[in-house]
C-alpha cells in the first residue's frame, strides 16, 4: 500500500490538472471571442454595405422599383406609429399585471395559473402570436391589417418581458418602505402609488425599453397579419386643422415597418436591393442597440446609487 502511494508522481498530476484548468478557461474565452467577432462581422458587413445608401433622400423617399431611388420613409413612419400603439398598450398593462402579482395576489391556484401563463407566453414563438392576431383581430374582430392590430400583437408579445421586469423591480424594494407608508395611515393603493411605483420606476423603465427594442425588430407576427411590403403613402396626420383637432384615423391605415421592408429587399434576387436592405438594417440595428444601451446605462446607474 505504502509503495503504491509513493508511486504517484504528484508533480505531473498537478501539472496535468493545472493545464486542463487553463485549457478550459481558455476555451471559455475563445467562445466569447468568436461571439464578439461574429457580432463585429455582422455590424461591419452591414455598415460597410449600408452606409453607401443612407442619406437624406433614403430617409425621405418611398420604396421604389428602382433601387437607386428607394427609401424607407413609409417604413420608419410605420415603425414609429406601431411602436406608439405598442408602448401605450403594453407598458400600462404589463406594469398593472406585475403590480398585481407582486403586491396584491393571494397565494392560491388562480395566482399560480396566471404565473404559469406568463412564463409560458414568454416562450411562445412570435409567429404564433401572428396567427393569433390574424385569426382573432384581423378576421374575428374584423379590424383589418392596420397599425392598430400590429401595435396590439406586438404589445401582447412583449407583455411578459414588461411583467417580469416590473416584478423584479418591485421585489427589490425593501419591505420597510411599505411599512413606513402603512404606518402613516396610507392604504394599499396609496402605498403602491406613492412609495412602490416611484421606487420601482428605473427597473420598470429598463424593462419597457428592452421590450420595445424587441418589438421594433420583430418581423414574423407583423408579416403574418398581412402587412403590405409596398406602401407609398403615409398614415393621415394625428393633428388636424379643423375640430376636434385630433384624429385617430392613422390607427386604421395599412402600413409597413422597417424589418418587413428589409425582409422584402433582402429576398429579392437583385444585388442593388441587398444594398438598400443593408441600409435599412443599419438604421434598425442602430435603433435597437441604442435602446439596449440606454437600458444597460439606467441599470448601471441604479446599481451604483444603491
Amino acid at each position: 500500500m505504502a509503495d503504491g502511494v509513493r508511486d504517484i508522481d504528484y508533480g505531473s498530476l498537478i501539472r496535468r490538472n493545472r493545464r486542463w484548468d487553463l485549457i478550459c478557461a481558455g476555451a471559455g474565452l475563445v467562445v466569447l471571442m468568436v461571439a464578439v467577432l461574429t457580432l463585429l462581422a455582422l455590424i461591419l458587413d452591414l455598415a460597410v454595405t449600408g452606409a453607401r445608401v443612407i442619406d437624406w433622400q433614403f430617409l425621405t423617399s418611398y420604396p421604389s422599383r428602382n433601387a437607386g431611388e428607394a427609401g424607407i420613409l413609409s417604413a420608419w413612419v410605420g415603425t414609429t406609429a406601431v411602436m406608439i400603439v405598442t408602448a401605450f398598450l403594453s407598458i400600462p398593462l404589463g406594469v398593472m399585471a406585475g403590480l398585481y402579482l407582486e403586491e396584491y395576489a393571494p397565494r392560491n391556484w388562480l395566482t399560480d395559473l396566471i404565473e404559469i401563463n406568463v412564463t409560458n407566453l414568454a416562450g411562445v414563438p412570435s409567429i404564433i402570436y401572428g396567427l393569433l392576431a390574424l385569426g382573432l383581430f384581423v378576421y374575428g374582430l374584423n379590424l383589418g391589417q392596420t397599425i392598430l392590430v400590429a401595435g396590439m400583437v406586438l404589445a401582447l408579445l412583449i407583455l411578459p418581458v414588461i411583467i417580469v421586469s416590473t416584478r423584479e423591480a418591485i421585489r427589490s424594494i425593501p419591505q420597510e418602505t411599505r411599512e413606513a407608508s402603512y404606518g402613516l395611515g396610507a392604504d394599499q393603493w396609496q402605498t403602491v402609488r406613492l412609495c412602490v411605483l416611484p421606487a420601482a420606476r428605473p427597473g420598470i423603465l429598463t424593462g419597457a425599453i428592452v421590450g420595445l427594442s424587441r418589438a421594433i425588430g420583430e418581423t414574423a407576427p407583423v408579416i403574418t397579419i398581412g402587412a403590405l411590403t409596398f406602401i407609398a403613402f403615409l398614415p393621415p396626420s394625428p393633428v388636424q386643422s379643423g375640430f376636434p383637432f385630433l384624429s385617430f384615423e392613422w390607427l386604421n391605415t395599412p402600413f409597413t415597418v422597417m424589418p418587413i421592408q428589409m425582409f422584402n429587399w433582402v429576398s429579392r434576387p437583385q444585388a442593388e436591393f441587398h444594398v438598400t436592405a443593408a441600409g435599412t438594417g443599419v438604421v434598425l440595428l442602430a435603433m435597437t442597440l441604442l435602446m439596449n444601451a440606454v437600458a444597460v446605462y439606467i441599470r448601471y446607474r441604479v446599481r451604483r446609487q444603491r
Partner: protein
Amino acid sequence: MAVTGERISLQPSEAFLRRRRLVDRGVRWLLFAAASLSVFVTVAIVYILVSESVVFFANVSIVEFLTSTSWTPLFTNANYGIWPLLTATMVVAGIALLVAIPAGTLLAVYLSEYADSRVREIIKPFLELLEGVPTVVYGYFALLFVTPLLQTVIPGLSGFNMLAPGLVMGVMILPYVTSVSEDAMRAVPNQLREGAYGLGFTRWQTARKVVIPGAFSGITAAYILGMSRAVGETMVVAIAAGQNPKFTLDPTEGAATITAYIVQVSLGDLPHGSIGYQTIFAAGLTLFVITLSFNVLGFYLRRRFREVY
C-alpha cells in the same frame, strides 16, 4: 377634517373613508383584470389554432398529415404531409444546438467559475446586445455573409441552405442558453465548491465533478428551452433556408421550415377560409405543440433544480 367648536378633529369623515376604500378595491380589480389577460391570451391562442385546424382536418385526413412526406398544399395535386417542414425545422434547430450547447456550456462555466465580477459586468451586457439584434438582420447576415463564406469551403453548397441559418441561429440562441445554464450553476451552493477546493480540485475539476452534476437539471432545461427557441425562430430561416418544402436531412440543401412556410403563405394573398389559409394554422398548431412540450419540460426541470438546494 371638520372643525367642531374649539377642537379640530383629525378623524377623517365617513364619506372620505368610504371613497378611499372604493378606490382601493376598484384598483385591485383593475390590476387583477390586467394580470388575467395572460390567461385569456393563452386560451385565445389555443382556441384560434385549434378551431382553424379542425376545419383543415375536416378536409385533410390527419393520417396523411402525419405520415405523408410531401407538402404541396398550393399545387393542384395537393399533398398535405407535414414531414418535409418538420425535418427542415429539426435539421436547422439541430445545427443551432450543435453550436449553442457546447459553446453555451463552456461560456456558462467560464462566467460562473472563472470570471470575476468585473469581467462579468462587461460580458453580460455584451450577451444582451447579441440577443438584441433583430432576427431579420441575422437573416441578412446568414444569407449574404455566412453562406458565401461557407461556399468557399463547401463548393456544392446551394445559395439557400440549412447550414448557414443553423450556424447563425446557434449564435443567436447562445446568450439565452448561456444565461439559463449560468443561473443554474450559480444556484449550486458555495460550500460544495469550497469542499472540492479543500480536496485539492482545480476550478475545472470542480466544475466538472461538482457544479455541472449539481446543476444538471437546470442545464438540461437551458438546452431544452434553447431548442424551443430554435424551433420557433422564423426570420433567419425564412430568408436564408429557402421556401421550398423538401424532405431531406442534408444541411447543404435549402428547405422550408414550419415557420418559413407560414411566412411564405402570409406574404401571398390567400383568401380567408381557403384551404391554403387553413394550412398555416395546422402548421402553427404543430409548432405550438412542439414548443409547448419543450417549454413545459424545461419549466419543470428549472423548477426542480431550484428545489434541490
